[in-house]
């Protein structure tokens, strides 16, 4: 016992030690911060890995299941369609799996000549049969793909999808040999190469899918890293839920020599504020969005990393037309006219968006959408009376559902208060749902009013209007109008563009008259991008082909200059 006491460390030493502690800690901190001076982004640039913020967690990595922009961003890296996106202009085409393609004189039959050196990531050749297999899969009624209507351009595709035809060989697509694909369409479609660029037209590897389940099984093991087989410039190497999806160079890609980045990390960050912080701390090359309160700040500083671009998209609310109170046209009109879109654009979203007076965003392509809906509280109150409500307090409670995001919440709260201010509607609830849950709720039409955004799939008003045809897999409102359907059908058979646009405009007028939707604004893309990212050009549809994007450190350049 006594010896032990003697052996104790002398007090003086202890005191030194306590003083030494903070000094040592501080020194360590300095060393540590010195070591991590090279940020994640700088390391990634050196390794030529692009790190992108990508909104919410992807629903799937299967082109036949997804329907959101964020998911298709990942799929564009993994797969390559017949035609690929052009790096600078959405109207131009790049050869993808097809080397060249041609149409008959009225654009209703297209022949694609596939390159012979295109390979899947496991080494199998990509053939015309792979495309037919994929079209069969997405159109199969048992697959219930949310976006199958994108393939309705093909003859008999709609009938097969709805189960009216059981035999897939009647659908207008066939292979001639292994490397020629012929698509017979429902009507003249001069913009068909634009259509086949879309995610839904991407091929999938049949043997891989059937190794892990039936052709129509939607969520199987084949989407896991290691199992996933794709034909694009990159392959899936890692996927951790809510952390990242990592894709790396595909050694079997036919154009591998021209693929500039070595890989891409997609980060699902659904909190816009967190994403901006991550960018500022050197964790991201690119943000998916930018919170509205910071747009002004970046603008003031005229920060070169801030980009604002036109984006062909429409932000709106869907109304369930089969459920009270939104089943009443007058009531929907009252809601639409009571939304002060200009205030929302100017003070709530603050990103230079345009108030949406109709649905299809105006574009330079020649289509001028009807502009009918504009904020008018008087008119809104009249419509409310017409709907049978003396005052807003008689309106039964209904819920607006939004997917979790501060931006959507702010807009919803502002609109909720506008309805209260201008119509006196007190009982509006706002409910937020996680993105995957939200998509399912909307798909099941299990809501009264839901937030929605629609980005054009190709540069043509048809991409905005065809979704409102009765029973379309993206309609999700229950709305159906025979006259609208007829006009859309008719427009598909017209080859003269001016005449076709006139018909589409007439159809849109019906849509805006019945208002299964409440238009809010037309999108702009506002985001931050690191100066190291090269060849990232503004695109109307924002579908960047990743293989052209280069990562060059700005600092290296400066060192070279002197």
């Amino acid at each position, binding site marked *: 016992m006594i010896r032990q006491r003697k052996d104790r460390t002398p007090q003086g030493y202890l005191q030194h030690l306590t003083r030494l502690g903070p000094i040592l800690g501080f020194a360590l901190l300095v060393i540590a911060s010195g070591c991590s001076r090279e940020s994640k982004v700088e390391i990634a640039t050196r390794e030529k890995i692009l790190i992108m913020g990508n909104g919410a967690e992807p629903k799937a990595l299967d082109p036949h299941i997804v329907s959101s922009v964020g998911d298709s961003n990942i799929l564009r890296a993994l797969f390559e369609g017949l035609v690929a996106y052009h790096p600078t202009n959405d109207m131009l085409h790049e050869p993808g799996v097809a080397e060249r393609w041609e149409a008959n004189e009225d654009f209703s039959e297209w022949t694609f000549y596939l390159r012979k050196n295109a390979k899947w990531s496991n080494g199998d050749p990509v053939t015309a049969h792979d495309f037919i297999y994929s079209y069969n899969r997405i159109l199969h009624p048992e697959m219930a793909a949310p976006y199958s209507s994108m393939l309705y351009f093909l003859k008999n595709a709609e009938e097969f999808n709805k189960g009216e035809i059981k035999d897939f060989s009647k659908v207008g697509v066939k292979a001639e040999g292994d490397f020629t694909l012929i698509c017979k369409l429902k009507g003249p479609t001069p913009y068909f190469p634009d259509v086949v660029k879309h995610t839904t037209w991407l091929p999938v590897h049949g043997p891989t899918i059937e190794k892990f389940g039936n052709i129509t099984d939607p969520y199987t093991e084949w989407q896991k890293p290691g199992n996933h087989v794709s034909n694009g410039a990159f392959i899936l190497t890692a996927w951790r839920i809510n952390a990242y999806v990592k894709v790396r160079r595909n050694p079997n890609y036919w154009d591998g020599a021209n693929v500039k980045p070595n890989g891409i990390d997609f980060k699902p960050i659904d909190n816009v504020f967190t994403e901006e912080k991550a960018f500022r701390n050197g964790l991201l090359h690119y943000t998916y969005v930018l919170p509205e309160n910071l747009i002004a700040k970046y603008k003031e500083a005229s920060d070169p990393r801030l980009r604002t671009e036109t984006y062909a998209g429409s932000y709106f609310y869907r109304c369930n037309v089969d459920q009270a109170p939104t089943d009443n046209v007058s009531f929907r009109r009252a809601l639409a006219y009571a939304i002060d879109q200009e205030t929302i654009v100017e003070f709530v979203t603050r990103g230079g968006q345009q108030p949406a007076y109709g649905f299809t965003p105006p574009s330079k392509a020649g289509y001028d959408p009807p502009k009918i809906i504009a904020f008018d509280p008087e008119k809104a109150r009249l419509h409310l009376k017409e709907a049978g409500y003396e005052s807003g307090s008689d309106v039964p409670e209904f819920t607006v559902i939004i997917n979790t995001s501060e931006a959507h919440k*702010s807009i919803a709260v502002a609109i909720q208060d506008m309805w209260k201010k201008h119509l006196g509607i007190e009982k509006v609830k706002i409910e937020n749902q996680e993105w995957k849950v939200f998509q399912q709720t909307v798909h099941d039409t299990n809501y009264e009013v839901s937030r929605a955004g629609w980005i054009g799939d190709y540069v043509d008003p048809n991409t905005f209007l065809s979704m409102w045809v009765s029973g379309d897999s993206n309609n999700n409102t229950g709305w159906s109008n025979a006259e609208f359907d007829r006009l859309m059908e008719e427009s598909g058979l017209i080859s003269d563009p001016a005449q076709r646009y006139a018909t589409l405009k007439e159809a849109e007028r019906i849509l805006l008259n019945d208002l299964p939707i409440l238009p809010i604004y037309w999108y702009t893309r506002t985001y931050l991008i690191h100066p190291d990212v090269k060849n990232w050009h503004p695109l109307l549809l924002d579908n960047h082909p990743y293989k052209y994007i280069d990562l060059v450190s700005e600092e290296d350049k400066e060192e070279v200059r002197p």
Partner: protein
Amino acid sequence: MISGIHQRESEAIEKGSSLGRDSWLRLRKNRLAMTSLWFFVTVVVICFLLPIFSFVPDPNVTFPELQSAPAFSTATSVDGIEVYYLFGSDHLGRDIFSRILYGGRVSLAVGFLATAVSLTIGVAYGALSGYIGGKVDAAMMRIVDILYALPFMIIVIILTTYFGNNLWLLFVCIGAVEWLTMARIVRGQVISLKNQEFVEAARSLGLSQWRIIFRHLIPNTIGPVIVYTTLTVPAVMRLEAILSFLGLGVQPPDASWGSLIKEGADRMASDPGLLVYPAIIFALTLFSLNFLGDGLRDALDPKSSKD
């Protein structure tokens, strides 16, 4: 005469001081605890009474054009409505001061409600377990141990998803999870009390077991119970704040202190006031409850008192 003297004497004898009076006197000497008590009472009164008066604006009325107004400023909206912002306005032009008051109502009410539930369950469970003793006690306490082992946050998140938007029901559930420590404390107290003479006296008078537990034992555990209660209220409020911070608590446009702090934290780069004001008030309230609990512990437990 004689009877008169006797009366006076017995008065003097009976005028011992009760536990409550004693502790109150002791608590009054603790300045920190008293300040906390008054602060807390003021916060509660302001939150629950002030919104009745019309000069506090509706917390959910938006004036998007008046966004990010500074504190102590007056602004006029497009419709010509003049608004005075005591603590400034948020990104939709809502009054932060009024949102803090209304948010305080939710946070405080939730704190009290969940604590009341946990108090009821915990005291009854602990007292029964301690009094009956033996195998029943062992079994009841093992159940508590098992519940302790479950990850608390995950249970609450599951409950939130299950009960969806119903905030009140959810906090009844939180109370139903929070009672475990209370049950242990009460059990310990009851075990040490149940063999004392006053219980034996009650038993020999033929009182029923229920009466003994609820009239004689539980009132004697009141000291630790009150202390623990004052510490549970801030714990539950903090939990509500965490849940709101995760987006699981109140639904927009309503607010609680937690959700206000979350919104503020998101926007602190552009409007620091959104974060600072609710955070200060929330922190002060939590501090005051904790100091009060500390003071009560000293006051109610004569053994640990310093004088």
